[in-house]
């Protein structure tokens, strides 16, 4: 970014402030390193750094664990946390609704439908997911199924979006589409074998560990595009803070902005759901945490900080889900809510500006 913190922007509550970004970046780097250090296998700190710096490691198994398991996993956590958080931020601003999240329009439900279609119908293909769980190679099948499912719902939502003037109506329609999608999955589940269902349910727990290095390149690219696009939308998002009518009176094209925001959010949420399964909570909580922490609703400040806080929180959740020192791995979807909720409660009670911030 080639933005200078000139005086016209850095004061009076507009534009970016660098101090929080520095603090949060430090936290993020710290958690990233911690995530690489901790795991079910104990690896000496020096060896971890050695491997990361590209030096030969005395123990090949260790370097394999670090480079093939822990590193991709940590990077996935960062991408997932960042993507879901700014996806949620955009939905909350677009709909001026504090309970909106990246999955509000049914994009995630669409992914679930795609995955359910693969797992529950093509019974034998489910083994692919088992392979992915073991980290021996990703299942493009699942990813493609999830992407197609998300894309179909997205197309439906966009189709409706062209016909609707009002964002509140859009929100309700989106929630209804999500419910229909979930209902279809439910019916599918009802008529499926228990074993097939178990595979599907396992997927719904979410996993940061299934993304291979190859897949990670693609995921990084998509999330990167999503984050940069969101930053380009910050002016639009700020105008929407005053409500649709004011935004329109300032020359904002409401329909076009809405479609752009929905596409970018779908890209972010859909790709993460495809690669990691549905991960809840982060997308709703992190935007609130960020607004509360920064004491502003200005998106130019919120977006970079949302990325950093989302990524940090996801890394923290990943560290906890590994249960360091044990062989157990807990489902990430449960951890995000279990860790995230107390943090949100703590901040609401401590800072008391959560509501005013929205």
């Amino acid at each position, binding site marked *: 970014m080639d933005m200078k913190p000139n005086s016209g922007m850095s004061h009076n*509550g507009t534009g970016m402030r660098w101090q929080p970004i520095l603090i949060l970046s430090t936290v993020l780097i710290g958690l990233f390193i911690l995530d690489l250090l901790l795991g079910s296998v104990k690896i000496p700190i020096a060896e971890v750094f050695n491997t990361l710096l590209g030096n030969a490691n005395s123990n090949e198994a260790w370097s394999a664990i670090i480079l093939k398991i822990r590193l991709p996993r940590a990077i996935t956590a960062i991408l997932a946390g960042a993507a879901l958080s700014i996806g949620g931020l955009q939905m909350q601003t677009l709909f001026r609704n504090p309970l909106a999240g990246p999955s509000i329009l049914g994009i995630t439900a669409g992914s679930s439908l795609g995955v359910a279609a693969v797992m529950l119908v093509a019974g034998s293909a489910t083994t692919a997911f088992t392979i992915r769980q073991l980290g021996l190679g990703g299942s493009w099948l699942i990813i493609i199924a999830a992407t197609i499912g998300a894309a179909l719902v997205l197309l439906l939502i966009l189709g409706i979006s062209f016909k609707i003037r009002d964002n509140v109506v859009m929100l309700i329609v989106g929630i209804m589409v999500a419910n229909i999608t979930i209902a279809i999955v439910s019916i599918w589940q009802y008529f499926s074998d228990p074993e097939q269902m178990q595979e599907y349910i396992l997927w719904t727990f979410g996993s940061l560990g299934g993304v291979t290095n190859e897949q990670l390149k693609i995921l990084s690219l998509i999330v990167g595009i999503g984050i940069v696009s969101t930053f380009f939308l910050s*002016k639009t998002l700020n*105008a929407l803070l005053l409500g649709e*009518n*004011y935004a329109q009176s300032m*020359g904002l094209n409401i329909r076009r902005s809405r479609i752009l925001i929905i596409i970018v959010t779908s890209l972010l949420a859909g790709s993460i759901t495809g690669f990691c399964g549905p991960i809840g909570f982060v997308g709703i909580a992190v935007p609130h945490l960020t607004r509360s922490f920064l004491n502003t609703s200005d998106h130019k400040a919120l977006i970079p900080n949302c990325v950093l806080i989302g990524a940090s929180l996801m890394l923290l959740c990943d560290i906890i889900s590994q249960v360091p020192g044990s062989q157990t791995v807990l489902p990430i979807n449960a951890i995000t809510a279990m860790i995230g909720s107390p943090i949100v409660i703590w901040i609401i009670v401590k800072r008391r*500006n959560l509501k005013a911030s929205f």
Partner: protein
Amino acid sequence: MKPSSTILTTKNLTVGYASKQVLKDLNISLKSGELTCLLGPNGAGKSTLIRTLSAIQQPLQGTTQFFDREVNSISKKELATKLSMVLTEKATPGNLTAYAVVALGRFPYTSWLGTLSEQDVLKIKWAMKATGTVEFANTHIAELSDGERQKVMIARALAQDTPVIYLDEPTAHLDLPNRIEIFHLLKKLAREEDKAILISTHEMNMALANADKLWLINNNKTISKGTPEDLVLKGILEKAFTAGDLNFNYETGEFQKPLIQHELTVYVEGPEVIKIWTKRALERNGYAIDKEQNAEIKIQITGMIQNPNWIIKPQKKIYKSIEHLLKGLNTK
């Protein structure tokens, strides 16, 4: 003062919805440097007209020339550089400072990132100064009172730097001192900045006191236009509001609905100010005021404003306050 130029003219404009005409055959115009009040009761179609004039809503018939072009043919982006709006709805932009809200007014001029240039900052500061909102530049909008917040929204419209500003019921949520201040501010902006300002309101006394031109919504879906006083003297204002059995008081410029409870009429004489307030008290208590000396009851006021005496003729008893006077009348 610059000679004012006509900015907006409508020709046989009919506004409303497919199922319902709201206002019809409007031939009205806006001039720069003037404060125009669109006056009408709630539900008369004020918002519908403003939405149509600002090209948010299509007219049923007729045209609106805005800077010599049909308003609906102007792109939204260009329109935003000519026309800014302040809406009835309470904007809840979340955690933004007043400065940041005003800065949003620069939306049509900033680059895609919304970065403020030096000129933008100057405009913002000027807008805040003109509206008296500088002191809470760094205060978060949620912490401001309704009146302060509305001034910030007006500052935002000013920062948008448009020759025309529409305000839809800008004082709807405000108390009287704030209402007066907002109207005063808008009148000042019309004069000093040569802006064409259109305010919709249902508050007749504010409109009568401040408007250069009145667009008065009549009972028959049309609009009468003119200087407020002309409309009053021609009896058009009185007619526009004759939905109920209201009486228009031509002295105070207010509508009244008196509740006559007493058969006796009262005549009051004495110093002007005390007389006015005594009459008000009597009317409120159901006495009909007679302008002639031959009323059944005569009240004589003597003494100074600080220490008046009321005497009910032909009685000789002296009352020291209006409260006592009313009691004395009741026991008669």
